[in-house]
């Protein structure tokens, strides 16, 4: 579904990604692991068109998407949940969801009621301002908002960052339900344990390069790589 081929991304003059390549197949949950500053967010932003790569290619459902505007990519079926959530503080929870509403390309798709089934906690705070939510509530709302656009591919950037363990488990359950609903997920994480519980395959990124790739079993067994690039 998604093929990233040797992308080089820059912030101004600083070269951040050095030929990152990865693939995500339809229906998979793939994780992208790496330390602080490894380049996970930059990879996500490059896919979403927020920091378009200078070199290399990205294909989504077979179509080249480098250089396309983020809003067009969202309409093609990619949703990005940023690590800093970026909830609209002046809008209520319900309004945050409503403005993100986009008709499904096939079938009935998501709507507010269905999203509230996955995140019942949001329903109780529907009229609260986005600026008055706790970190966990913001995380849930950010994912819920992304779902409203009826994506086929969900780019989830550190969904568990800063959450209490109980909430991490709850969120994992919710992500599993999304996967059962047919969503493809690329998950950037520092929380290796949580990512390994959720994913089918994984990549490890360090200093802007993919250092390792393999199945979850391989990742779990390979102490050495994990020590070197993940510090666990």
């Amino acid at each position, binding site marked *: 579904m998604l093929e990233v081929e040797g992308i080089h991304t820059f912030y101004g003059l600083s070269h951040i990604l050095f030929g990152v390549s990865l693939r995500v197949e339809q229906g998979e949950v793939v994780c992208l692991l790496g330390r602080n500053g490894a380049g996970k967010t930059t990879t996500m932003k490059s896919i*979403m068109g*927020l920091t378009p790569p200078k070199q290399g290619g990205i294909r989504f459902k077979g179509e080249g998407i480098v250089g396309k*505007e*983020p*809003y067009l990519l*969202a*309409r093609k079926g990619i*949703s*990005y949940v*940023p690590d800093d959530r*970026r909830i*609209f*503080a*002046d*809008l209520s929870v319900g*309004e*945050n969801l*409503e*403005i*993100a509403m*986009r008709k499904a390309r096939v079938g009935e798709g998501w709507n507010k009621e269905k999203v509230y089934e996955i995140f019942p906690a949001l329903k109780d705070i529907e009229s609260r301002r986005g600026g008055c939510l706790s970190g966990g509530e913001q995380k849930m709302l950010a994912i819920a*908002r992304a779902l409203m*656009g009826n994506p086929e591919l969900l780019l989830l950037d550190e969904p568990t960052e800063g959450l209490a363990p109980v909430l991490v488990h709850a969120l994992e359950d919710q992500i599993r339900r999304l996967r059962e609903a047919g969503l493809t997920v690329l998950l950037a994480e520092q929380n290796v344990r949580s990512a390994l519980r959720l994913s089918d395959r994984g990549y490890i990124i360090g200093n802007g390069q993919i250092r390792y790739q393999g199945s979850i079993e391989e990742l779990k067994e390979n102490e050495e790589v994990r020590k070197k690039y993940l510090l666990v």
Partner: protein
Amino acid sequence: MQLGFIEEDGFQMEYVLTFGPSELACQLLVGLSRSMLLFIVTAGLSLVLGVLRVPNIAHGSLYMIGAFTAFTVSTVVGGAGGFWLSLIVAPLAVALVGLVAERILFCHLYEREHLMLLLFTFALMLILGDLVKIIWGAEYRSVTTASLLQGSFMIFGLPFPRYNLFLLIMGPLVAVALWLFVSKTKIGRISRAAAVDREMVGVLGINVSWVFATAFVIGCLLAGLGGALIAPTVSITLGMDHTIIIEAFLIVTIGGLGNMWGALIGSLIFGITHSFGVMFWPQFAIVFPYVAVVIVLLLRPRGMLKSVW
């Protein structure tokens, strides 16, 4: 009771040399009606500042175009019909000018720094000013309002201009319409979101460019409406763009940049202090609102309400 009379900005303002409660009340109403006019203009400026982050100096020019268009419509059509029609045609004409300017010029500039935007909209102000001169000439023009709105009626035992009452009705109508737009329509909600984080709005699949165009056009519509509404109360002339834009920027600054309700509060402060200035010290009436601006900014440097900047 002694009555004095001055004409300030063409607003007929009666001032009294000895004041009783009814004079004060009456003068308050005059101030409020002026505030309503200022609000209609500054709400547009504030919307553009808040959503597009463009400090549009040409907003005053759009207001001036509104006034001249109102003049043309009301003279060509004539009578009460001409006046009412001018209130519809002038805002729409200005909105059209705004749409063209936005699609051809502004939409390429949103990523630029504020200084560039200031220079650019300043240039646009000069260009629009010349355009007005070419089309309407440099003479003074005037508009006659519908006879329904001419003359005065008695309130608190004093005469009060009917037209000011009309402004007192129009202001809240515009405020309610704007409130409905920003809080009840999808595009209004999206504009509020885009004011804070336009990139994230794009990530949600929304073409921000059209959201900006809509907000800009509504801002222009309000400038045009303000121009059409002030037309019967002043001599319409080149230079009215400069006067209003200075006041308008001060008002949005004391209200809180980009906050529409801030624009309302700022307009109230400006209009009411001015009208009491007229009452207590007519020769220096114009100074009063500026003193109020200084006081507000000393107490609340970022304005009365939360600024989105």
